[in-house]
């Protein structure tokens, strides 16, 4: 046991051994704390959801590879291989329970898990791949030398028809064509009398077919258990929520993104930490900390809050609550309330001020004591890293963001931040703080139910 462990550790430098890609054959007997259970499930869901987004946006295979790699690193990967494995297994089985209930959910879960597995399998070294194949009991025959010689021309021809440059494989598996539908569909293999001749480098297709069918059967089984026992036992606790989840999670979130027209004061702290872009998050934090913001900051944050749907009355209450701690309520009403009404077009010229765009914020020139501006542009690298860290950004995503910043692509950096913290892509890119907020709400609204469920479990 000790040996296995250390071997596993040795393989941990990126090219992890076979054990790093579990096949989820049976539920683990692990002690899992609720918080861990919740965190794992949500993190994996981020990965799967983003894969789903990527696929539905028609991303190319290479783009998907990058996407999945990024997501896995950002959400699932731990420095310790055993930890990653543990999280991997816990999160898979948690979501299996969530997604077993209905045909459509099963299908979604199945194809996302298979896509994820496909990507991860390809990253394994030959040794690890072989042991996975053994574990999946893929008992296919390797083509004998004599057979290979008779079919050689056709095998090479088939390989060159899809990739004319690569070196031809000499190791082929002879499998029923039914087992490799994607290779058949793409005419990527030679077919003869019902057999597909799969070159070693295409074996991932085979493995995925089996993986998929195993998970599919397992889901059906979990579903049966759910119907037979869990559903009744959890009639008042879990079942209604799982059912609600089935109705809302995969359904409306893409098709009818609901823009929230109004936010209320009691939600504002929560929203700030989940859906404000870094510039606003920073201003918000400073306001809470100092109970004060200078004019530039008040404008930038105030108009943004108006844009996300904070009503004038609430806005006044919000600013008053903070400022009065520093300057007193009276002085606030006298000196500051005016400019807030002004922002809402209730004073002075009564023009309706519109929230600032990224461009405007990036071009602004904050000076001493100012907190407005765009952190990607106006923060030192050190401060920016710290701020991003606080948002939960790290690893590869952090490096990519800093890369963009160094090249002065501030809005791209902001977009990457959005993607890393939401585990979803943002195809249009970020060009307005309020757009950031709206996109973020869309994503979270679809996730809220999941969180509820997992908390209750």
């Amino acid at each position: 046991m000790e040996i296995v462990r250390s071997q596993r550790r040795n393989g941990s430098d990126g090219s992890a051994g076979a054990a790093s890609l579990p096949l989820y054959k049976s539920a683990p007997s692990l002690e899992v704390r609720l918080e861990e259970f919740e965190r794992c499930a949500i993190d994996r869901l981020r990965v799967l959801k983003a894969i789903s987004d990527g696929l539905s946006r028609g991303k190319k295979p290479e783009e998907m590879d990058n996407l999945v790699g990024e997501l896995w690193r950002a959400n699932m990967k731990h420095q310790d291989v055993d930890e990653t494995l543990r999280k991997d297994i816990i999160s898979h089985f948690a979501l299996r329970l969530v997604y077993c209930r209905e045909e459509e959910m099963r299908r979604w879960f199945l194809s996302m898990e298979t896509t994820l597995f496909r990507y991860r399998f390809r990253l394994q070294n030959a040794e690890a791949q072989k042991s996975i194949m053994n574990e999946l009991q893929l008992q296919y025959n390797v083509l004998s030398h004599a057979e290979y010689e008779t079919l050689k021309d056709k095998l090479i021809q088939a390989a060159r028809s899809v990739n004319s440059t690569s070196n031809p494989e000499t190791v082929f598996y002879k499998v029923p064509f039914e087992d490799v539908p994607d290779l058949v569909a793409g005419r990527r293999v030679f077919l003869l009398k019902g057999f597909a001749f799969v070159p070693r480098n295409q074996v991932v297709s085979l493995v995925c077919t089996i993986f998929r069918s195993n998970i599919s059967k397992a889901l059906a089984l979990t579903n049966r258990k759910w119907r037979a026992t869990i559903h009744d036992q959890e009639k008042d606790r879990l079942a209604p929520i799982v059912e609600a989840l089935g109705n809302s999670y995969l359904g409306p979130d893409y098709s009818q993104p609901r823009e929230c027209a109004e936010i209320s004061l009691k939600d504002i702290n929560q929203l700030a930490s989940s859906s404000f872009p870094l510039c606003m998050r920073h201003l918000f934090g400073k306001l809470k900390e100092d109970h004060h913001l200078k004019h530039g900051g008040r404008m930038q944050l105030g108009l943004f809050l108006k844009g996300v749907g904070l009503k004038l009355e609430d806005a006044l209450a919000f600013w008053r609550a903070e400022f009065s701690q520093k300057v007193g309520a009276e002085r606030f009403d006298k000196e500051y309330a005016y400019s807030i009404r002004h922002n809402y077009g209730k004073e002075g010229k009564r023009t309706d001020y519109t929230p600032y765009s990224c461009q405007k914020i990036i071009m602004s020139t904050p000076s001493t004591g100012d907190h407005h501006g765009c952190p990607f542009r106006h923060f030192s690298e050190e401060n920016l890293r710290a701020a991003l860290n606080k948002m939960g950004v790290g690893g590869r995503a952090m490096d990519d963001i800093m890369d963009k910043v160094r090249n002065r692509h501030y809005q791209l950096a902001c977009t990457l931040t959005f993607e890393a913290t939401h585990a979803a892509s943002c195809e249009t890119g970020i060009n307005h703080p309020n757009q950031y907020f709206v996109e973020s709400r869309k994503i979270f609204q679809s996730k809220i139910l999941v969180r509820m469920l997992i908390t209750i479990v």
Partner: protein
Amino acid sequence: MASIAACSSPGIVPKQEHGEDPMQIDSNAPEQRHINRVPEGLLLTDYLRIYYGKLFPYMDMFKWLSYGNADGKHPGCDSSYFGRREFSFTIKSDRDEIYLRFQSFSNASEMESAIKAKCPTKIDIGAVYTVDPAKRHAYAQSGFSPVERELIFDIDITDYDDVRYCCSGADICSDCWPLMTIAIKVIDTALREDFGFNHILWVFSGRRGVHCWVCDSRARRLSKEQRSAIADYFNVYKGGENSLKKVTFSGPLHPSLARAYTDVLKHYFEEKWISTQKLFEHEERFHKILQLIPDESVVSELAGKWQGSRLEHVNSVRWDQLKHMLQSGSKKTQGLRRCIEEIVFSYTYPRIDIQVTKGMNHLLKAPFCVHPGTGRVCVPIDPNNCEQFDPTSVPTLAQLLEELNANASIGTDNYMEKTSLGLSVNFFRTSFLEPLFKTCKEELESAYNTKIQQSKDSLNW
């Protein structure tokens, strides 16, 4: 010519509901043209009633769709099999058309009485379901879903309208019908050689296309994903309406396509298609071909050459020029290498309706139906002699009934034998049904034996 009215066998006279003599069918016409369509004034259903009454091969259809399970004596038979098959009927009344889905029959005689009673203008065959489709509502909870389905292909010549100059739409002629012949050859060969299928039935769709039924048990049990894979394997001609180039090869041809190309497409394209369709005679036609060449200098050189005077054999001469140009050393660059093949595939490779093939519960018209527009019977086509198949000489309903009248005196009760339908039914039996039935029996037997063996083994343990 004999007339039904004058026929000695009163049983086959259609009911006269319109007070017209059904036999005023242009009896002076020198050829058979007059019997190609159901005559005015006589309802198609009148004819169909006789067809379903005397000619439709119920037993053969039943034997086919039972796949060996109808033989109640063998313990390995699944007696519910035929009864779980969906049929659907299209029924024409005076004005409207009624479409009855999820019909099912537990045996041949039930099917026969239903068809005779409802006299459908079209019969479609669907999938075999988990339970009797007629009782699907009762089983909605436990799951009503298709479990078996022949692998099917639907090829319609209207899908070739952008490369077909002799006809368009529903029309066909002896110049363009060979596109269907090619489709049969290419797909039939690939199904047998590549996929290892043996029990393949090709059927004339009645007007302008062909249907294919792959009936091996392995084919019937394919999942949706596997069907999609096969459809895509054959889906070479693609790209939307807005893309010029629909066939693109990035490397040498896959062995299956290479075989289609050298065995069928190339020869046919060069020997027949370019001349019958006059592909290089008309500027607008050869421009369409030139558009497929992604090299402007080649295109303008050829277009320049082809301006003005028409020489003899203009089509083959110009095709040779094009080929020469694309293959000549200097131009033989990566991009143009596959161009000749791409052109030939664009014009001749089968264009299947992939949605039909992909689905498990897609309905497809049954063989031996009668096309309501042409009156022609959907007869099987022999893939080994598909060049000989002439869609314009396929028997029509009217012709069959005439034959029936003419041969009424021949002393046999087998009506089918008295008509040219007999040939088609015989072909269906000997080339398709008998070998299929034999295989089904063998499979049933061996599946049963394995089961017995397994239960023995488990007892021993």
